[in-house]
Each structure stands twice: as structure tokens, then as C-alpha cells.
């Protein structure tokens, strides 16, 4: 490509940040030293096009070193990766953790999302000067949460929770962030080796492969190699496992579809972009038992014939990043990844890909665009990922919790796994219980427990609390009222009751919570996180937010009737005509609050 690079040039620091990933610029035309020889060579085409997936990691390097991405930096990246500056700017401005304007080297992101604002009143307009309002940081069990990013040669990111107002003020004033504390309450049922998905949480040292191996680690992988790929797919199909990210698609069917593809280059993507407000189960799993993900991914790749796997981890989970990075490196060293894994003849490796602040990148096709170095905009389906996915190849996309379920399925057989649960929902399920309960955290149950049982498991309601509503499934899920606590938390019962389990969120809101404020936050969330590609979602989420703002004033009047109808109209077009699940579900929670909780009906 003929790049037109304007005069702004990268500083020495910016160049060094880029070079730390890409190496020193080899040639003049790639931004290297200007010499006569270099001016006589030019390269292009295929070999340079392959560099594009390095765009997001390179932007991370600069953003982490300098705190923002300047025009000069973009020009240098443009030369290094052969991507036009306008395109890089388009990508950089898509992600909320990137900034193209100068800003202080330390950023304090304060969660203002549903759980944090319900528990502590952290709201956009009363943050201290210099703090950045953030969507859900996935530490709802310890709300309120703050993510501090101290940029520099050694970037330091800490997810601090609970954070007091005083601590936030001090952080913004420039105080060094303390180290993250080991999590005591992420999964209150642990340590408990009788649990299935959480059996190693709080039991093993998440950084030690020996600990992992001593606690049944890699047994399932060895068994998978023994029974063969086809049998693994068959076991998963028999188990009745469905995706745990929210869409509940049968995992066995997805795997079989990829395994049957005529194209042999295939990819496995683990969706760890957990960003649904109120969801933190994947974080707890990744922080506490990262080797299990490596093992589960290797089994998935073996079963479906994938040669390479990506873990798309949201950028707001620094501890999960540290633990996973260690797990992948150590596993590779010990031949649990790489060539000829455990002498099975199977080759597989994993790349960890860091997100940069975009809920939409949890959408299965937006992930592909993000990894490929483009804006994280969802693709139109069909074609589906099992046929045309990452880099245009057949791709398996599975959520973290889904993959964790593979280990007990292989360990026990699919049939035994399927014996757990109800007729329509098989196996074990994690729920993220937060809000007004005594012991918020991730809880493992067999499908079939009721909402009341889950709340009891979490220590019951906070003393003196009275339930006003429970949010099931996150912002894309729906509210249920206090009279619905006997709802069985299975896919079929939820569907019959006109609600959803989504990603397993159970956010208990007591009577002190301002429901209108929660609804406005949900509307604001979807507006902020819409990618902007299709009209129903891009404009619909704004109009939905405006209508809610009017309803605050007009409840009970004729104007309110008009706005309620308007909301229903918007809900329908978003559900019917949006490209992806974000727009399709952006009205669900609001709709449930209007119909089930009768918010705004005076």
C-alpha cells in the first residue's frame, strides 16, 4: 500500500514501545533508519497484510507506555504494519481503554455500573476530577471497584475492590496504587474439592502447574488423547452441555460442525471478554484456576482439529492476565502446549489477546474483527463462525465457563455429566450473586436450584434488607420481582417465565435501590457500548435513553403513555432488525422492569 504519512513523528519512547513488540524497524520504508540502501527497497502484498493482527497489541504497547496514542505514534505504527493512519485512528478510537489525546500517565477507572452504584452510589456525576467512569469491571462481589492503570516502561494495572471514596480520591491525587489483595470472597463455597467447576479455586496455587497436576490436572487431556477426537465430541454432545456465555447454544453441535468442515486450518477462540454487567464468574475461574482453561482448550482443539487457540481476555482483568500468561508459558515449557503434546502427535498453541475496553467484543464475530486488527464490529451471519470465522477459517468460539465444563465431562463421561440437572438443562452452573446478600460471590450449583436457594446459599439477604427486584442475566437479561423467588434457575423454566439466565447474573436489589436510576444506567450502558454499525442499535439506544429521561418527569401523564409506546416500538425494532445480540437485547431489561416491576406506571 502507498502510505501517506504526515510529518508528525514518534518520540523515542513511542518507538521503543512499538519496537518492544515488533523488534527494531528493519528497513527504511518500515520506519527504520533512513539510508540509501533502504530507499531502494520496497515491500508489500501478502507478507505485510499478515501484520494487521499485531495492530491491537501494538496500540496496547504505546497506550501502556505513554498513556495515550499520539499522531506520531500512529504514523510509526502505520509504517511498521503497513496500515493506513486513518484506519489505525479508527481502530484506536473504537476502544474505551485507548486514548488519542494526551492525558495523565495514571488512569483511575471507577466502576459506575449496576452493582457498584446500587451498593455504593458510585455515579458518573459525582466522581472526583480526573477519575474516569467505567462500565462494569467484573468485581461486583466486592463492589465498588476501581481499575488503576499506571502507565510507563513497566505498566502496572490493579483491580481494586472494595475501594473507598477516600482511596479513590487519593488515587486520583496521584497516590501509588497498592497491590491487589488475594481474593478471599470471590467464591465463598471454596475451598471445597467436592465442587466440580470450582474444585481447585482456593485450593491450588494458580501459578503452580505442579499444584494443578497434583489436583487432577491434565487427567482429562490424557483421557481425551486416549479416547480420540471423535469420542470427545460425542461425549460433549451426550453431556447436553450448552454455552454458558448467554446464548446457550449446544456445545456438542458447534464442535461437530467445525470437526466436519472440509477446511483443515481451524481456530479455537476462548471468549473471556466477560463484560456483561454483574458477571464475574470467568474472572474468578481465570484468576484461581488458569491451567484448567489451558487444558480445556487443548481438549477442545484436539476434538475439533484446531491448530491454534486465542484467549480473548478483556483488558480490565489484570490479575487474570498475569495468571493466564504464566499458565500458558509454563504449560508450553512442560509440553502441555506446543508440538507433539504429551507425545500424542497433536500440536496446539495458545495466544492471549488483550481486549481494550469494548463490551461488543464479547460478540462472537466482533471478537474475530478485533483479533484481526479491525474495529470490533460484529459481522453479518450467515456465514456462521463454524464455517467462516477467524481469518475466514472455521472457528470454535466458547465461553470460559463452557470450556471449564469440558473437564468433568471427559473425566466422568458425558452420560454421567448429563445425569446432573433438569430435563432441559444439564450439568453444573455458576451464578454470580451480587447486591444485597450477605456473601456475594460466584456459586456453583446443579441446574435446578431456585432463585431463593441461590440467595440463601449466598448467606441470604443482608440484614434488614427487603428485596425490590432481582436482575437475572445482566443488562441483556431481565428483572424479576420479589414474588418470583421460587423460579427454578433452568433454561426451560426461565424461558417459560419469560426471562433468561443469560450469563448467570443474580443481582439482588433491595428497597434502597433507585430502580429508575438502574434503568437509566442500563440504557446508558448500551448506548456507550453499541458499536454504531446498524441504525436500530446506534440510534435506538439513544432514543431509548431519552425516552427514559422524559419518563422520570412525566410518569402518570399522557406524555408518559406516548413514551412507553415509543419504548416498546424501539424495543421491537432493536430486537427485530439489529445486526447482533447487543442491539437485540438492549431493551430486554428495561422491558422487564416496565412489565414485571411496573416501573413508571403510576
Amino acid at each position: 500500500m502507498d502510505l501517506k504519512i504526515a510529518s508528525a513523528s514518534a518520540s523515542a519512547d513511542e518507538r521503543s514501545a512499538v519496537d518492544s513488540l515488533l523488534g527494531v524497524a528493519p528497513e527504511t520504508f518500515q520506519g527504520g533508519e533512513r539510508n540509501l540502501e533502504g530507499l531502494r527497497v520496497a515491500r508489500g502484498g501478502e507478507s505485510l497484510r499478515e501484520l494487521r493482527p499485531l495492530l491491537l497489541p501494538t496500540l496496547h504497547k504505546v497506550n501502556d507506555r505513554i498513556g495515550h496514542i499520539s499522531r506520531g505514534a500512529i504514523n510509526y505504527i502505520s509504517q511498521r504494519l503497513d496500515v493506513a493512519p486513518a484506519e489505525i485512528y479508527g481502530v484506536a478510537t473504537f476502544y474505551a481503554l485507548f486514548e488519542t489525546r494526551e492525558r495523565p500517565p495514571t488512569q483511575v477507572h471507577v466502576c459506575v455500573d449496576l452493582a457498584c452504584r446500587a451498593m455504593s452510589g458510585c455515579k458518573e456525576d459525582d466522581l472526583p476530577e480526573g477519575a474516569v467512569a467505567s462500565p462494569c469491571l467484573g468485581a461486583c462481589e466486592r463492589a465498588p471497584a476501581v481499575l488503576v492503570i499506571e502507565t510507563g516502561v513497566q505498566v502496572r494495572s490493579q483491580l481494586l475492590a472494595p475501594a473507598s471514596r477516600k482511596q479513590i480520591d487519593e488515587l486520583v491525587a496521584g497516590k501509588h496504587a497498592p497491590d491487589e489483595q488475594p481474593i478471599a470472597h470471590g467464591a465463598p463455597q471454596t475451598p471445597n474439592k467436592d465442587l466440580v467447576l470450582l474444585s481447585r479455586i482456593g485450593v491450588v496455587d494458580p501459578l503452580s502447574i505442579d499444584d494443578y497436576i497434583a489436583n487432577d490436572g491434565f487427567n482429562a487431556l490424557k483421557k481425551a488423547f486416549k479416547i480420540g477426537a471423535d469420542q470427545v465430541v460425542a461425549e460433549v454432545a451426550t453431556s447436553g452441555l450448552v454455552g454458558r456465555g448467554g446464548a446457550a447454544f449446544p456445545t456438542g453441535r458447534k464442535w461437530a460442525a467445525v470437526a466436519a468442515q472440509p477446511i483443515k486450518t481451524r481456530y479455537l477462540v476462548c471468549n473471556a471478554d466477560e463484560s456483561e454487567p454483574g458477571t464475574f464468574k470467568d474472572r474468578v475461574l481465570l484468576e484461581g484456576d488458569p491451567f484448567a482453561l489451558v487444558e480445556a482448550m487443548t481438549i477442545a482443539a484436539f476434538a475439533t482439529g484446531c491448530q491454534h487457540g486465542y484467549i480473548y481476555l478483556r483488558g480490565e482483568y489484570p490479575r487474570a492476565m498475569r495468571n493466564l500468561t504464566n499458565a500458558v508459558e509454563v504449560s508450553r515449557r512442560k509440553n502441555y502446549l506446543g508440538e507433539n503434546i504429551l507425545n500424542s502427535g497433536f500440536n496446539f498453541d495458545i495466544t492471549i489477546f488483550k481486549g481494550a475496553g469494548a463490551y461488543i467484543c464479547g460478540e462472537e464475530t466482533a471478537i474475530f474483527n478485533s483479533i484481526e486488527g479491525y474495529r470490533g464490529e460484529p459481522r453479518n451471519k450467515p456465514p456462521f463462525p463454524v464455517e467462516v470465522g477467524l481469518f475466514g477459517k472455521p472457528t470454535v468460539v466458547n465461553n470460559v465457563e463452557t470450556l471449564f465444563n469440558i473437564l468433568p465431562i471427559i473425566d466422568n463421561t458425558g452420560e454421567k455429566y448429563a445425569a446432573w440437572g433438569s430435563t432441559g438443562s444439564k450439568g453444573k452452573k455458576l451464578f454470580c450473586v451480587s447486591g444485597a446478600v450477605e456473601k456475594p460471590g460466584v456459586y456453583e450449583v446443579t441446574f435446578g436450584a431456585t432463585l431463593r436457594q441461590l440467595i440463601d446459599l449466598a448467606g441470604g439477604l443482608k440484614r434488614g434488607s427487603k428485596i425490590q427486584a432481582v436482575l437475572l442475566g445482566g443488562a441483556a437479561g431481565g428483572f424479576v420481582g420479589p414474588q418470583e423467588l421460587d423460579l427454578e434457575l433452568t433454561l426451560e423454566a426461565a424461558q417459560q417465565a419469560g426471562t433468561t439466565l443469560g450469563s448467570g447474573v443474580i443481582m439482588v436489589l433491595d428497597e434502597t435501590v433507585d430502580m429508575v436510576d438502574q434503568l437509566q444506567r442500563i440504557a446508558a450502558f448500551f448506548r456507550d457500548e453499541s458499536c454504531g454499525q446498524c441504525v436500530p442499535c446506534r440510534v435506538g439506544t439513544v432514543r431509548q435513553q431519552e425516552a427514559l429521561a422524559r419518563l422520570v418527569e412525566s410518569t402518570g401523564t399522557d406524555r408518559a403513555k406516548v413514551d412507553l409506546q415509543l419504548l416498546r416500538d424501539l424495543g421491537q425494532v432493536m430486537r427485530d432488525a439489529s445486526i447482533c445480540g447487543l442491539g437485540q437485547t438492549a431493551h430486554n431489561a428495561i422491558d422487564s422492569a416496565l412489565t414485571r416491576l411496573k416501573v413508571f406506571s403510576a
Partner: protein
Amino acid sequence: MTAQVTTGLKVRKSIELTIDGQKVTALEGATLLEVCRANGKEIPTLCYGDTITPKNACRVCMVELEGSRTLVPSCSRKVEPGMAVKTDTERTRHSRKLVLELLGSSVDLSLTKNVEKWNDNYGANPTRFGAPSFHHDDRDNAVTGHHHQPDGKTAETVHQPVKIDNVLYVRDYSKCILCYQCVDACGEQWQNTFAIATAGRGFDARISTEFAVDLTDSACVYCGNCIQVCPTGALIFTSEYEMRGAGTWREDDQTQTETICPFCGVGCSLTLHVQDNEIVKVTSPSDHSVTHGNLCIKGRFGFQHVQNTKTTD
């Protein structure tokens, strides 16, 4: 095994499907939109352009497909055997109406063809979200993932000042529906210049050069192929912009003359739009098998020399 003769030609098979209860045939690879239009169904389109791969971003062409939970975009959905499609149901009408309302309330559609007709047809009333708000932050500097809490008294729009930074064409992004066609024409689908891209996210998404610099500082080569594909008049010739401003633009009085560009040996087709014996803009037929409506700066903008009235000394 059946013997197969490879000729290098791919023969498209005929496919049977149902549209509004009526059995029709189509060739594989065709889109639902093509088949619907061939069978006399009227389906509105906004972001669809005949020379660009559909981005299916506007969602005005949605149709109902049996077995699909959501509506499907007819512009990009390919026909499959046995499909049962409905083009005019309560759901499709609701969807089209709302999309027209959402766009009409946030974007200046005054230069977009057919919008009034469609608004009438679908009962769309873009003013029902409240009076449009023209007081805006600088959209080029929107902060990703952040916005000001609206009060609901006005309906937010994409209004922003017209960008005039060169003598050849004007960018009025208040009229932009974000169809992506200019980006695709500038980038990988035609020109491979990549001067513009979509920047920002959500309602703040916008077409932009890097750091919103002027076109003169960007990679723009002024081929004007973005103007050719723009369906809403957000990108227009300076000549048209000025004449509209002066109230002298009379499209009905214009003639169109086909000719061949005189500048080089390629021989691109030009369509000269002439008003009062002056060339006011240049387009190129999009169905031309070689150029597909694309030109370079000379063919697109190099017409003033034929109508210079001033004589040299």
C-alpha cells in the same frame, strides 16, 4: 465417481424459493433484494449501493424469513433453496418505519432520494422523538464510551459544522447515515487510498481522517469516488454545494451528457451534469464494466477548462 469437466466457468444453478407466497426462481448467489426487485416487490434501501459490497448497516431493507428469529437484511442475504420470504408484514413495516424515524430524527435527509415517499408509505414520523438538538459537542472529539446524560427534551442528532477544507468537494456529515460506502470506496473495495475510516463508537461513530485532520493533510487523492457512492448528499461537489447555497441548483433543468474522459488512454466514461450550459458535476455510470463508476481527480474534477470564459491577454 462421476466424471467432471472443469471448464473454469462456474455455472450458477437455479434455486426455487417463495416470496410472499409466490413461487419464484433465482440463480444461486443472488441476494434476496435482487430477487424481490426482479419480482416486482418494492423494498426501500438506503445504505445499499450497486458498486459496493453491502454493509447492511441501515436495516431498512429487512424482510421476514421463515425460521429466522430476527428479520434479515435482503440486500446481503443470499438466496437458499426453499426459503420462504415475506416482504410486507407488520414486522417488516414496523422495522422500516422505525429505521426511517431513527435516521430522520438524527440525520439531515433532505438530499436523500425517496425518503419522503417512504415516510408516507410506512407512516414514519421522525419528529415524534422531540425537537432535534443542534447544540453539539465537537463530534470529532467525542470520548469513546462516554456521553452526556440526555434530558429527553430534545432528540440528539449528528449535526456538526460542514467541513470545507479543499476546493473540490465538501463534507457535510450532518447528512451522514454511516452507510460505510465512502470508506469502502476509498479503501479496499475501490481506491485503496484509505484516507478515511470510521472512527469512534456507537452514536459517536463518524467518518474521519486520522485525528480528523483536513483532507489536504490526509491521504486523499481527490478521486471523488466517495462522492459517487454517497447516497445522502453528505459528500458533494463544491460547485453543487455553492449552487444549492445560492438557490440556483435546479436538478430538473440539468441535462446529462455521456462522454469519454479526454485525459488519458484508459477512456473512462463520464456523465457530465450540465445546467445553463455549464458543467456542474461529473459522475460515471456505475454499471460500466471497467470503471464501475470510479474516476480519478482529472476525470472527476478537471472540467473547468472547457467552460472558462475569461480569455487570456
